[in-house]
């Protein structure tokens, strides 16, 4: 019995030593589409893409600090970016993805937010980052487009 236990424990240690550290570059379901959509095109005609699966390629400029549950990816044009939201825990983007090139896939979603909802969202975002936020800067509601992320590949 003791010998058998020793074998089990030794095998586990050998497995541990052989297992190379995994720094996942692929997240969630990975990538499945052949074609990349331009973010400029998507943001130019967003309603054409609502509920459709798209693939975007660009620079990842921001990532959720605490849960890794969202990121922002940019397009080719200045100031262009879109939020990619994933289900908490299903995909977790590492903070190291900030400033790295990546490709993401997801379904385009449209949200029509009231002024109160915009304030609530920005307040939450500011609190997470320890930044100040003045609700008076929000004067009206907004229509927001984002990707419900299903997978990604990031050049970490």
């Amino acid at each position, binding site marked *: 019995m003791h010998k058998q236990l020793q074998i089990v424990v030794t095998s586990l240690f050998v497995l541990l030593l052989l297992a190379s550290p*995994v720094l996942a570059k692929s997240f969630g379901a990975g990538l499945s589409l052949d074609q990349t959509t331009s973010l400029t095109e998507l943001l130019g005609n967003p309603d054409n893409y609502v509920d459709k699966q798209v693939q975007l390629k660009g620079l990842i400029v921001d990532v959720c600090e605490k849960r890794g549950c969202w990121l922002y990816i940019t397009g080719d044009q200045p100031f262009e970016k879109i939020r990619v939201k994933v289900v908490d825990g299903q995909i977790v983007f590492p903070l190291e993805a900030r400033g790295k090139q990546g490709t993401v896939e997801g379904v385009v979603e449209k949200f029509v937010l009231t002024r109160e909802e915009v304030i609530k969202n920005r307040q939450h975002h500011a609190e997470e980052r320890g930044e100040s936020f003045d609700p008076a800067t929000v004067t009206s509601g907004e229509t927001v487009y984002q990707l419900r992320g299903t997978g990604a590949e990031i050049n970490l």
Partner: protein
Amino acid sequence: MNWRKWNYAVHRDLGFLCIGLTLVYALSGIAVNHVNDWNPNYVIERVAASIKPLPPGLVDPLTIPQLLQQLGESGAHENTFQPDADNLWIYIDQRMIKVHLPSGQVQQELFKRRSFWYPLNFLHLNHPKKAWTWVADIYAAALFLLAVSGLLMVSKKTGLKRRGLVLTAAGVLLPLLFLQLYY
């Protein structure tokens, strides 16, 4: 060997086998339970600084090294992004430097993985997926067996008829109570 001895042996050996995983899940469970109060994965340091103000608009990429020099940065930056005409974000290694152009105010964000907590949370939240999903499933099944075999470890003093019954009932009622309150 009768079933009681088998039950004891299963409970004892599974218990030993589960110690490591239980520590991982228990410690990480506490850590991620309080995610609203702290960041269980990263230490993020924010340092304020300032540079000479710049006019709003698109920043010429060639001017960024000069801008970084004002912050005492000599290394090359990886990437930059402008979320709007007033702001510039610069990425260097494990840092993000946010520059507000019209005021010249700078905020540097330096992040570092928590060397103890990050790996625990990595496993607990099943970031690796793949084979780790199997390990986690087997661990869950082992916990189930531990619970059942524990329940069957009846002794004269702590059997189900006495203290065991009260404690088991309390353990079952606790989640039911919270379901009643919050569900």
